[in-house]
């Protein structure tokens, strides 16, 4: 019998009980649900090793910042997994605390998570405990702030050549006023 979303939902709920919630399929038939940050790695290992589920591929993993959520739901880490044998994808998210976003590292389960987690750390400051070498990967090592957070401006604040008033923004860096 081919794998369907209901079977996955039923097996995951029966294995993890109340730590998985908010199942939904309105994202174009792709089963999406939430999981507690403590249970992420066990869930991932279970999805990979279970004979009927067989999610053998971690497609991608990224951080998301929700500044106006309440404190312990301000950061989310979204995992996409893909079952190549039955061609089914799932997406599960885990919400993390705003001040100190921390989740267990998935490098023990999939080697591909190594750089993905370093990128999430670099962009959002989410620390992955147990990561072999958690450093900044894309930005300069001397950079202290985490640029993809919503409050971080896109343009480089220190530039002098572009006067913000011509771009319809308040004169942040123009020294003419």
């Amino acid at each position: 019998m081919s794998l369907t979303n209901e079977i996955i939902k039923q097996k995951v709920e029966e294995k993890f009980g109340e730590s998985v919630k908010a199942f939904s399929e309105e994202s174009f038939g792709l089963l999406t649900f939430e999981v507690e940050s403590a249970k992420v790695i066990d869930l991932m290992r279970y999805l990979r090793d279970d004979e009927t589920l067989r999610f053998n591929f971690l497609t991608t993993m990224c951080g998301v910042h929700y500044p106006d959520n309440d404190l312990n739901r301000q950061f989310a880490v979204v995992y996409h997994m893909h079952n190549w044998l039955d061609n089914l994808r799932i997406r599960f998210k885990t919400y993390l605390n705003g001040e100190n976003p921390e989740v267990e590292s998935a490098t023990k389960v999939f080697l591909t998570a190594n750089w993905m987690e370093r990128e999430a750390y670099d962009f959002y400051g989410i620390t992955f405990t147990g990561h072999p070498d958690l450093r900044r990967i894309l930005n300069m090592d001397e950079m202290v702030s985490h640029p993809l957070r919503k409050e971080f401006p896109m343009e480089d604040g220190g530039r002098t050549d572009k006067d913000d008033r011509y771009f319809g923004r308040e004169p942040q860096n123009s020294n003419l006023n």
Partner: protein
Amino acid sequence: MSEIVVKSIEDKYAELIKQRENADGSELSILNLGPVHPATHGIFQNVLLMDGERIIESESTIGYIHRAFEKIAENRPFYQITPLTDRMNYCSSPINNMGWWLTVEKLLGIEVPKRAQYIRVIMMELARIADHLVCNSILAVDTGAFTGFLYVFQYREKIYEIYEEMCGARLTTNMGRMGGMERDLSDTAYRKIKAFLKEFPAVMSEFESLVSRNRIFMDRCINVGPISAEKAISYGFTGPNLRAAGVDYDVRVMNPYSSYQDFQFDVPVGKSGDTYDRYCVRNAEIWQSVRIIQQAMDNLPSGPYHADVPDYYLPPKEDVYQNMEALIYHFKIVMGEIPVPKNEVYHSVEAGNGELGFYLISDGSRVPYRLHFRRPCFIYYQSFADIVKGHLLSDAIVILSSLNVIAGELDA
């Protein structure tokens, strides 16, 4: 928060040097396959710990052209994000563009007419040929066969001419629109594609006869940098590098998009995942792409080249001056006020290097709330340190160019 000790790569290796005194007295040395290097066809740095000629350990540093695509994507309306995508994998930019358009159309639920889908397939397969041509000819240049590069780049220029017919640009194509293509295949484009299909196979077989059975090339590439299928999957390999390892995962076959199911093509698969397999898989894929373009050109359906969705597709200019609705639509689209549902979508396409995925979270406003690019180069390049252990330095260079790591996609 746990205080993360940031140790520079060189200090870490210095300790290894002190521990490991060699029997014959020759010390280990640190070599920089660094940012400005003829062999790294792009800007990434590998600090190699070397014992004479053999590599013991390697550490990659990337991010030298990090341009914060995901931050820019959060400040731009939907139709302005395509110029970002074709600067990711700039060897095959139409595939990235079409990937983005397919994601947005999936989110908005737009049904693209058959003719536009066929034109998109033609453009994507031409881009795949261009991407594989660059990778294989540069791999041949790295092992010393320079003439192949010169022959093959002539035909890459022909592909660029076809792009120019379609969208006016050679490299950063920004091709396609929400709901189809921006213009129909002009008859010069039609003629150029026909000419390309007629002449290219001869040049390709000449290139293959020059390089594939070349004694030096085979010695330099066979059994160099093999990777097993399980490790490739665990490292997140997709695309030609994974198929070279023996796994026939191809997004065009697994979940076909843009009417790929109408075409017959096979997915070439290697055995041992070494450099020669990656080269052969890319060569075979070029032949399959030619086959797809041939089929697409033969039964190219007639009809409109874009969906009738005035909310998202810019009305023709003369209509905008005549009637009022076209003016309103034109104004709303250009200002980015297009009706976008509050939803999230993940869609992936088979790019030149693997599965290029777009994870889009939209909160109904004119800009995406979060857009994450699943970049194949970024994901499989982390295995380079693992593959290259124990090889000679000259093998490391051949492995690097056979992995076809493109800096734009790596540091997006």
